[in-house]
Structures are given as structure tokens and as C-alpha cells.
């Protein structure tokens, strides 16, 4: 079902954990739907110096979290803002269609943590105003 890359990141997730004095913390998803991602950022000089995550969720949620943290580590805020869910999925060599929402959650977790940072430090971040963290990202399987 999953690519080797997904399995590799799932079995050996990068950057698991918390950052005690994080500059931005974001949590998205909810337990009802089966996935919660929490992301911690350490930001210095507009650069993401460190990032950690904790995730309750399926294999692709954990792999997406891991990959997302890898993608933004050491990057500027602007670069991090440009990481889309597609980029996360592609970096994982793809996700099954039914699991694409995990990559969406990962993108949202980054943005949510950045929003927290922007509020805490009163920094304006381009593109964060119209972000929607609603949960309606699941594929519904319809039966007639």
C-alpha cells in the first residue's frame, strides 16, 4: 500500500519529540477523525532552526509529519510557507489517494505553528491570513 519511503519514515521518524521553549506550536486534526499532529518550531532570524513533532495517527500521518519536519528544517519562514501537501506527498514518493489528507494535515500543522509564532512575536507572515484549518479533508467513499 505504502511506498518504501513512507514505510522508512514511519519506522524511523525524524524529529519526534517536543521543544520545551518553542517559538511556535501548532496542533491540527482531532482524535475523532483519527489523526492529530502537533508541531514545535524553534525560529531564529526568520530561519527554522529546529522542529519537532508528535503525532497520533496512521502510518502515513506519522510519515507525513516526519517528512514535513525534514522539509522545513533550516529553511526560511517563506520557504516553509511554500511547502504544500503535494510537496510532502511527492517527497514520500506518493501516498494512496485515501491517505492524501495526511499530507494536508502536515501542511496545516506547519502553518498552524507559524501562525502561533506570528501571533506570539507579532510578525506578519504572507499567506497566513486566509488559511483554513477545518477538518473536512477526508475522502468520502460513496455507495449508491
Amino acid at each position: 500500500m505504502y511506498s518504501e519511503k513512507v514505510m522508512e519514515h514511519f519506522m524511523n521518524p525524524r524529529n519526534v519529540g517536543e521543544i520545551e521553549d518553542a517559538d511556535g506550536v501548532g496542533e491540527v486534526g482531532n482524535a475523532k477523525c483519527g489523526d492529530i499532529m502537533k508541531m514545535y518550531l524553534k525560529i531564529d532570524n526568520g530561519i527554522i532552526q529546529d522542529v519537532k513533532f508528535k503525532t497520533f495517527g496512521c502510518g502515513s500521518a506519522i510519515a507525513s509529519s516526519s517528512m514535513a519536519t525534514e522539509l522545513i528544517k533550516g529553511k526560511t519562514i517563506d520557504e516553509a510557507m511554500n511547502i504544500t501537501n503535494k510537496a510532502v506527498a511527492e517527497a514520500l514518493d506518493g501516498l494512496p489517494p485515501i491517505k492524501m489528507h495526511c499530507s494536508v494535515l502536515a501542511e496545516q500543522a506547519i502553518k498552524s505553528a507559524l501562525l502561533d509564532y506570528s501571533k506570539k512575536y507579532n510578525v506578519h507572515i504572507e499567506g497566513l491570513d486566509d488559511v483554513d484549518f477545518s477538518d473536512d479533508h477526508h475522502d468520502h467513499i460513496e455507495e449508491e
Partner: protein
Amino acid sequence: MSKYIYMDNAATTPVKEEVLEAMLPYFTEKYGNPSSVYSLGSESKVAVEKAREQVAKALGADKKEIFFTASGSESDNWAIKGIAYNRRNKGNHIITSKIEHHAVLNTCKYLEKQGFEVTYLNVDSDGVVDLEELKNSIKDTTILITIMFANNEIGTIQPIKEIGQIAKENDIVFHTDAVQAVGSVEIDVKDLNVDLLSLSAHKFHGPKGIGVLYVRQGVRLDNLIHGGGQERSKRAGTENVASIVGLGKAIELATGNLEEKNKKLSALRDSLIEKIESKIDYVKLNGHRTKRLPGNVNVSFQFIEGESLLLMLDMNKIAGSSGSACTSGALDPSHVLLAIGLDHETAHGSLRLSLSEFNTEEEIDFVVEKLVGIVDRLRQMSPLYEKIKGEK
């Protein structure tokens, strides 16, 4: 231990060697169509009728009451739609439970769209239907009660005989989805007052894609699959001879020494439950502790999600299943776990390990050892566990 440990026997089972052997001649040598006049055809016919006897014997039924279908799902659909369409003029009300298999639930939902009214009975925290609620749900228009024999997720066994009695007293047809029960628990359709019963071979070491609907003599239902005269004109389609032979052999083997097998299996099950409960905290057994299928273990590990758990078990060559939404592609986790009162979060962290006669105590120990490590690892990653620890 490098062998694959298979503990998902409620999902499907390997075909037993003896069963496959019985099937083999019917592919390339004895390939005749049972409806044909010539000898090659008669041989197939005889084989089909022998299997029908084997099924009848296993259920305490008459062979005229046994109809072969292509799956448990087809049997469920046929039973429910067949009665609904046939008795439409008598009434439009069907009673079922909230914890049925989707083959029953989605069929009922479809019938609702067609003007039928369906009552979905609650279950208690063990997953048992309340007989009083059942009695109170019966109306003048009730034409069918369909309640599963044993639940596929949590293993809880329903009071089938009592339900059958209630149905009989009220002159309502009673169907039971016994897909998980046949081959695992003693069944006598006459004794249990069952009118219709579904079973599926791949749950008891027979092939996939073959099932049975038992129809008590005198019960009339519309066909689901119309066409040729097979199955006494009640279910069309050239008979799947090889699979029917396999089903016959498998049910004979599965019901042959049921009592002894189940004593061993229940002991294994209870040992697995006991070890999990003693070695892992924040764990909950789902389903009734004693009135449950001899091979079924279902536990919820709080703060973690089921699919991750399964993947990590798979990495350790252990096969199990979960009621997590993520394994089914649906939004909500198992409707069964929600119906017995679990919150969404706990339901997501459920694990079903379903044992067969081929599992061993040694495997149990290996699995528990691995589980301890995996659950801990996933909890360390979980933001929910972090909160609990913070609160403590």
C-alpha cells in the same frame, strides 16, 4: 521466531491442505457443468449434492434447505432483500442491530431508501442486544428480524435462541448472519428457531467467494440472482463446483471436533487477554468477556492509532486488524466500537487478534512481547499521551 504469525482469522483464513486437495480435481478433470446430461456433468452434480449434505449436517438442517451463494455478503443481501420484497404487502418494518456487518447494515440502508422502515437496536457495553428493547420494537408491520450470531469485531455472541423464540411467537422471519459463528460455535438451526442463516467458507479454512444461505423449509423469499434453474431455481449461475466441494469439506472439518478445538482455543484467547491486560496499561477489553467467539481478542490501547500499530506488527511479521477508520477508508472508526460506547479516540486505538486452531502459546508470548514495545513507542510519539502524562 521468523515464521509469519497470522492472527487475523476473522478477516479470512488459509485454505486447509485437505480442502484444496478435495477441490483440485474439479478444475481440470471433473470440469463438467452439473446441469449437463452426460456423465462428466453428473459427476459434478453428485459432488455438489455431497457438499450440500455436509453443510446440512453441520447445521442440523435438511439438504433441501441449503442454497449455495458466492459469499457471506450475497447471503445477507439475499436474505434481507428477498424477505423484504417478498413480504412487502405484509409490512415494511425490519429490525436489526447497530453492530451488524456492513453487508447487513448497508442493505438495510438501501431498503430504507426504497420505503422500508428499519429499527437499529442498541447494544450494551459488552455488545449484547437487549431482548426487552427487541420486543418493544416489534410492530404489526414487522416482517423481518436480522441479528448477527457473533460479532466480527468484538466477538460477542448474541442470545440467538431467545431472539428466535421472540420472532417465532410474533410470526416474524428471523435471519442471522452467522458468518463468524459457523465453524466456531455449535449451531443447530432447528433448536435455535432460525429461519435464515448466512455463512461464508473463507472464515473456516475454506475458499473465498463461496457461501451458503440456509432457508428453513416453507420460508419464501424473492430471488436475488434470477436466471437458470440452478439451486432449485432459487439462485442462478453455473455452480462453482470446486469451491462448493471445498466449502463442504471445510465445514465438515471445522465442525467435526468443535468442542475440543474450542476448549483449546478459548484457553489460548484468555491467556492472550490476560497477558495484555497485565503488561500494558490504559488498555480495555472490548466485547463480552465470556460470551465471545473462542478465537476473538479485541482490545483498545489508549492514545495511539490502530493502523500504525498494525504496520509495526506487520514489520514484526504479525498480522492483526483494527477498527480504526484509517484501515477502512471511512471517516469514522468502527461503528461497532462506537455502539458499545467507546469514544472516537479509544476506538481508533483498537486491535483485533483473531486466533485459529493453528496458533500456539509460544506465538502469544511473542506477540505480547512485541506489543509492549510497539505500544510504548507509539505512545511516546503521541500528543495525547503527552497530555495524560502532564496531568499525572
